[in-house]
């Protein structure tokens, strides 16, 4: 019998281009949702930082799992369980290769970035932090990379310190170096800011932290959708990201951790799958990575995520990067050319995220008017209230781009922004 796993993407489907010319229309055809209309207009989906759309290959893999081999994993001798287990573990291997972890034992499946950070805080943090120790985060962190550390500091008496940012949205690295000391146990930093778009120099941040003996967690939620990440080259101790922002399903994410560190950490949750044997006298925990995967996992999510990274791996990374750079440059120029529009987040090293405010028009009204024109953007504080406070704005509108977006869509965005201004000038 052949394994009914449609978990790898055929070359013809995903290979939009080789050798530098990026055929965006061909790529768009891989994403069924991009063909729909909203309010009678073609959908212009510019909310990719919130969640990305899914290629047909991912949707089909989910369908195929439920249609043909749904079963629980790691616990049945029957055929379907074996197929499910195999697909699940294959997905782990795909992720391991995608981020260049040195072993599948270093790839822990979690619900998403948020759970990954909470796992590290709850397990590593509780074990290693004492009163007076310091945890360093930055002013541009997502709430999910602030609150777990605040909670941990409350429990342990450790102190949370914040690296400031400048007016363009860059980290103040001098201050960072000054804040580092032998009290610093952990630095937890976002790789790419979901609001400002800033790509932080994490390699340098990690090296400095290691010099004082601190561990480093990198929140890669917004990095992996834009460029490939090599965790060994970075040298980070932990790296976390969410599947749904990486063109995969919701409810699945990855915590990468260096094996020796994970090995020394106590389990995060107790239950089935994370044990070798249980008695009322003594329970033996399972080996990595299962020690951190208690209970029935999100099997189909994992399989879907594996297919998503297959899909991405088959794209021409250089062409994708050039296309996104072009979109960023084009979109920046367009928005800056509109009177009354101010971009927030203008670092040189930036991913394709355009975050803006319009003078005299509240972001929430911008969102409604844009939606009316079929344009989906995010408005609000983007789970980054400290960033909003830093730039003294109650809310912003954010267009976050993916490789399937086009210049034409940015023209539609600019038109809708002009319309919003028009409504409020009239």
């Amino acid at each position, binding site marked *: 019998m052949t394994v009914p796993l449609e978990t790898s993407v055929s070359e013809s489907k995903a290979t939009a281009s080789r050798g530098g010319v990026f055929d965006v229309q061909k790529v768009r055809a891989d994403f069924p949702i991009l063909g729909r209309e909203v309010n009678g207009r073609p959908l212009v989906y510019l909310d990719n930082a919130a969640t990305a759309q899914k290629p047909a290959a991912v949707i089909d893999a989910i369908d195929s799992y439920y249609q043909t081999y749904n079963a629980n994993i790691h616990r049945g001798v029957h055929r379907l369980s074996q197929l499910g287990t195999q697909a699940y573990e294959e997905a782990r291997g795909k992720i391991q290769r995608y981020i260049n972890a040195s072993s599948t034992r270093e790839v822990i499946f979690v619900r998403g970035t948020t759970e990954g950070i909470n796992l590290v805080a709850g397990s590593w943090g509780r074990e290693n932090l004492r009163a007076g120790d310091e945890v360093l985060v930055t002013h541009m962190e997502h709430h999910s990379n602030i609150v777990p550390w605040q909670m941990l500091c409350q429990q342990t008496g450790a102190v949370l310190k914040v690296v400031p940012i400048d007016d363009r949205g860059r980290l103040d690295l001098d201050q960072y170096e000054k804040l580092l000391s032998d009290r610093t146990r952990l630095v937890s930093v976002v790789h790419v800011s979901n609001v400002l778009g800033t790509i932080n120099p994490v390699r340098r941040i990690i090296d400095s932290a290691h010099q004082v003996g601190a561990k480093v967690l990198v929140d890669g939620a917004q990095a992996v959708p834009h460029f490939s990440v090599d965790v060994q080259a970075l040298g980070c101790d932990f790296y976390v990201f969410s599947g749904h922002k990486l063109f995969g399903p919701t409810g699945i994410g990855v915590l990468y951790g260096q094996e020796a560190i994970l090995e020394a950490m106590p389990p995060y949750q107790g239950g089935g799958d994370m044990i070798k044997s249980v008695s009322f006298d003594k329970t033996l925990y399972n080996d990595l990575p299962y020690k951190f995967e208690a209970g029935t996992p999100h099997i189909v999510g994992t399989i879907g995520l594996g297919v998503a990274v297959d899909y991405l791996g088959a794209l021409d990374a250089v062409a994708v990067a050039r296309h996104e750079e072009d979109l960023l440059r084009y979109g920046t120029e367009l928005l800056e050319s509109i009177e009354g529009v101010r971009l927030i987040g203008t670092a040189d090293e930036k991913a394709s995220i355009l975050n803006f405010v319009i003078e005299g028009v509240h972001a*929430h009204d911008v969102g*409604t008017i844009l939606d009316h024109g079929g344009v989906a953007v995010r*408005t*609000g*504080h983007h789970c980054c209230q400290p960033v*909003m406070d830093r730039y003294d704005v*109650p809310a912003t509108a954010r267009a976050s781009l993916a490789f399937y977006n086009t210049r034409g869509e940015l023209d539609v965005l600019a038109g809708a922004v002009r319309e919003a201004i028009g409504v409020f000038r009239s």
Partner: protein
Amino acid sequence: MTDLRELYQQVILDHTKKPRNFHEMANATHHAEGYNPLCGDRVTVYLLVDGDTITDVSFTGSGCAICTSSASLMTQSLVSKKIDEATQLFGTFRDLVMGNVEADQTIDELDRLAVFTGVREFPMRVKCATLPWHTMKEALTGGAATISTE
């Protein structure tokens, strides 16, 4: 585009740009702060109540056009209302923006507040329109929100 214009009616735009009764009230008998964490709308509503009659209303804060204009128009429509009339008006207003009643059934009672009829086509914006009203109700009923007049 017609329903966008229905949402952003001239009266709404006017009250957004020039909110009425937009100030703190030193001698307020009641006040409360309302916050919508989803979009960052923030309003503080101040009321001066004499017996069971509202004699003055004002607000401060920052929010979107729907929230700001709703607060502004609310302050105008509450003056000289009895407390239970104000609560009742809130109920009718909420029904209107949620699409539970037709505007023509309530137009007399709501008077100019009927300009918010268009909100029903934008379910994500209902909270913007009702935030000032929730805050007003909180100010009148919430014990902790009552301030002393020194």
